[in-house]
């Protein structure tokens, strides 16, 4: 709070304290990036081949970020703005310089594994302590450049900014984009734009130019403005056409982009499904359920037991026959687990449900049920939902992609209908104030139990599809992390909001998957993003909108039954 207030105040002439503060923060981040190993590890991975590595990009972005924040807050003439950027960048770089000098004097490796001579060489372009001045100067230069963007008009700054963002983004995803391009007959384009890792220098220039030009032309804005200027009927036609095109894109995407993308999106859809389930219990009814994975387990194991053709399979049913049973069983479990904990409120409920989740997880892996559920060896040979030849286009991940998407759409529809019903209102009322809700005639037992059961049903469906997706279910798939992930995606997306669940799943499940190559480091950023989100946008990315209903109700001029008592004057 205090920090925000201080930073929001315009810098008085000649006061450099905010700039210094930004620089200090940047310096700490830069040193942190170096010491946790991001700089050395991703030095091997180019962003633009032969020009700049990812590790260097991280440092450059920190310096540029510090410079631009300082410049934006600086007041005074152009010179002062640029100088503020340069100072913040220099302080950021100065921290790195200090790190290099300190590292030469003391061996930091006892505390920091990554504080190796190699790191110092990287930071000084191979000069070691003799080149310790380099980060400082580079920082100042980059900070000044970033600050310089704030003395030119916004119509230059914005396109340049977007151009740079596009280069970084495409450089990051180069590997993912290159493969489908290579296999889809556009291999010339792929080789031209992308190096084996990262962009080619030419590619980077082209990406920058295209993104900049697109922004200069103000593409999306102009189109949006032109569409909203259309008369109602044509506008609707544009929307319908847009909808059809996006549907087609959704349909064609896995075929064009290949199996990996299909798998990622199927995973996202799976989490959307479970997210919509927990959104009922947590988002609407406000019951924080951290044992959500239990219902997922029930759904997955039910499908496994009923369909598996290997050991532990008991019925060898087709997948589609097992799914309804899995959902119903998960619902029954929801009621079974829900009943004893209905009276528990708030934080205590979270702990109690956490207990349930853990019981199920441990049971699944226990010796007790090893003979039934297979324990760590799991249930394998769960048939694919649609049996096709291996070379059919519906084989593998593509099939699961379609199934998960269709189910996610159905579940979103169901969730939307429930939210708009009397039951949905009762859930929200309970979340807001359960005593008052009960005094208005809402049965807490019945309503909460329904929230539990329906949430559990969605989770069970998620588990069933997961079993079909992977083709097997092991006790190790039942992790507390699943519950946490689902809860986090709801909170990040926006509590109680259905579009929020979708955005949250893309953000927390999809994007980390795309960063697979960065292994554990992606969770580092995942954590940072979560903290930043809760600090700056606690209501979530897409908070639920107010339902505007009053004006949609047909006017009844003569109110029946209730004589027009003199309304309180306004």
């Amino acid at each position: 709070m205090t920090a925000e207030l201080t930073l929001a105040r315009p810098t008085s002439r000649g006061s450099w304290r905010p700039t210094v503060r930004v620089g200090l923060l940047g310096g700490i981040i830069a040193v942190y990036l170096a010491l946790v190993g991001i700089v050395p590890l991703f030095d091997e991975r180019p962003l633009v081949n032969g020009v700049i590595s990812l590790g260097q990009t991280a440092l450059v972005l920190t310096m540029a970020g510090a410079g631009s924040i300082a410049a934006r807050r600086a007041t005074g003439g152009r010179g002062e703005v640029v100088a503020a950027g340069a100072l913040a960048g220099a302080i950021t770089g100065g921290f790195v310089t200090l790190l290099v000098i300190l590292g030469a004097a003391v061996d930091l490796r006892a505390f920091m594994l990554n504080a190796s001579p190699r790191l110092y060489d990287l930071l000084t372009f191979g000069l070691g302590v003799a080149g310790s001045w380099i980060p400082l100067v580079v920082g100042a230069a980059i900070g000044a450049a970033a600050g310089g963007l704030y003395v030119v008009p916004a119509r230059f700054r914005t396109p340049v900014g977007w151009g740079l963002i596009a280069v970084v983004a495409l450089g990051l995803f180069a590997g993912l984009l290159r493969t489908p391009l290579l296999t889809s007959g556009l291999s010339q384009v792929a080789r031209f734009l992308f190096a084996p890792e990262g962009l080619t220098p030419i590619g980077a220039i082209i990406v920058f130019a295209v993104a900049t030009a697109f922004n200069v032309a103000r593409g999306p804005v102009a189109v949006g403005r032109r569409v909203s200027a259309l008369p109602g009927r044509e506008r609707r036609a544009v929307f319908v056409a847009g909808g059809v095109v996006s549907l087609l894109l959704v349909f064609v995407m896995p075929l064009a982009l290949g199996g990996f993308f299909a798998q990622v999106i199927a995973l996202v859809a799976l989490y959307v499904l479970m997210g919509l389930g927990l959104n009922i219990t947590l988002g609407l009814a406000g019951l924080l359920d951290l044992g959500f994975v239990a219902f997922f387990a029930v759904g997955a194991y039910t499908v496994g037991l009923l369909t598996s053709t290997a050991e532990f399979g008991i019925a060898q049913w087709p997948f589609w026959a097992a799914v309804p049973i899995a959902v119903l069983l998960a619902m029954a479990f929801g009621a079974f687990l829900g009943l004893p904990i209905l009276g528990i409120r708030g934080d205590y409920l979270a702990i109690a449900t956490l207990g349930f989740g853990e019981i199920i997880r441990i049971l699944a892996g226990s010796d007790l049920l090893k003979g039934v559920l297979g324990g760590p060896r799991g249930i394998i040979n769960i048939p694919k939902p649609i049996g096709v030849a291996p070379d059919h286009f519906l084989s593998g991940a593509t099939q699961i992609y379609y199934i998960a998407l269709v189910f996610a759409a159905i579940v979103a529809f169901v969730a939307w209908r429930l939210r708009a019903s009397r039951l949905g209102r009762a859930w929200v009322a309970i979340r807001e104030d359960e005593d008052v809700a009960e005094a208005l005639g809402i049965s807490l037992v019945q309503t909460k139990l329904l929230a539990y059961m329906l949430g559990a049903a969605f989770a069970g469906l998620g588990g069933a599809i997961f079993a079909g997706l992977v083709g097997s279910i092991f006790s190790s798939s039942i992790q507390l992390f699943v519950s946490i992930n689902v809860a986090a995606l709801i909170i990040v997306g926006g509590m109680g909001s259905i579009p929020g669940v979708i955005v949250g799943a893309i953000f927390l499940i999809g994007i980390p998957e795309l960063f697979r190559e960065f292994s554990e480091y992606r969770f580092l950023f995942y954590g940072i993003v979560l903290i930043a989100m809760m600090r700056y946008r606690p209501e979530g990315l897409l908070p639920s909108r107010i339902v505007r209903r009053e004006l949609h109700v047909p006017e009844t001029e003569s109110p029946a039954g209730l004589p027009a008592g003199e309304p309180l004057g306004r």
Partner: protein
Amino acid sequence: MPLLAARAVTKRFGGLVAVHALDFEIDEGAIVSVIGPNGAGKTTFFNCIAGFYEIEEGEILLDGEPIHRLRRDQIAHLGVSRTYQNIRLFNNMTAMENILVGQHHHLHSTWIGAILGTRGVREDEDRAHVEARRLLRFVGLQGRGDTLASKLPYGDQRRLEVGRALANKPRLLLLDEPTAGMNPAETEQMTEFIRNLRDDLGVTILLIEHAMRVVMGISERIAVLDYGEKIAEGTPEEIQLNPRVIEAYLGRGSVAEVVAQSDPGPGSAASV
């Protein structure tokens, strides 16, 4: 038979007796006030009626049937609605939705019906929305239906709370300090509004109120609580002259003083 009757109701919190052996009756269609100094047990008594507290002794009868063992939602189903001293709206719902929640048990859609969007459910919802809109107009909140409850001005929040309570089509309405925090003009409107509720809708009204102008103006009978016990009951005129009431409000010793002042006009005695 009275609509609501309390017989020897006692409510304790640990060693503290909040309500002690209270006998109380209210007839159908009446407006009755409960007054008393702060901490006299008025709100506790309301909470006992509405099922927020379990009473230790005695019984509470609605239409001769005991309700003191029922849950809050069951009591609401029998036609008892209430408002709260500190406004308790559903702040993140719109005014309209607040009223729709109040109609909960008069709607009949099941969750399966809601998912399928059956015709019955749609008609149910349409009726509910028409009714909610009418209630909004009735409490003077026309056009504010899509505003979040928390964004409404204070006076409107009080009105909305009454509207939400009315959505349950109550026979007995418990109003806990409905004019608290209102300016004289708003208080005047609210008083008029409460009287209309009874006159037009036939709702029986039991209210806790501190503003003596309101109490004396609309109550047919007044019950006075002090330290959890009923120390007086009667018409406004009787209450104003009752020495025990004056004592409870002004403290011992002031009785003689007040009684000595001849002719206490309406509202002058206990306007503390």
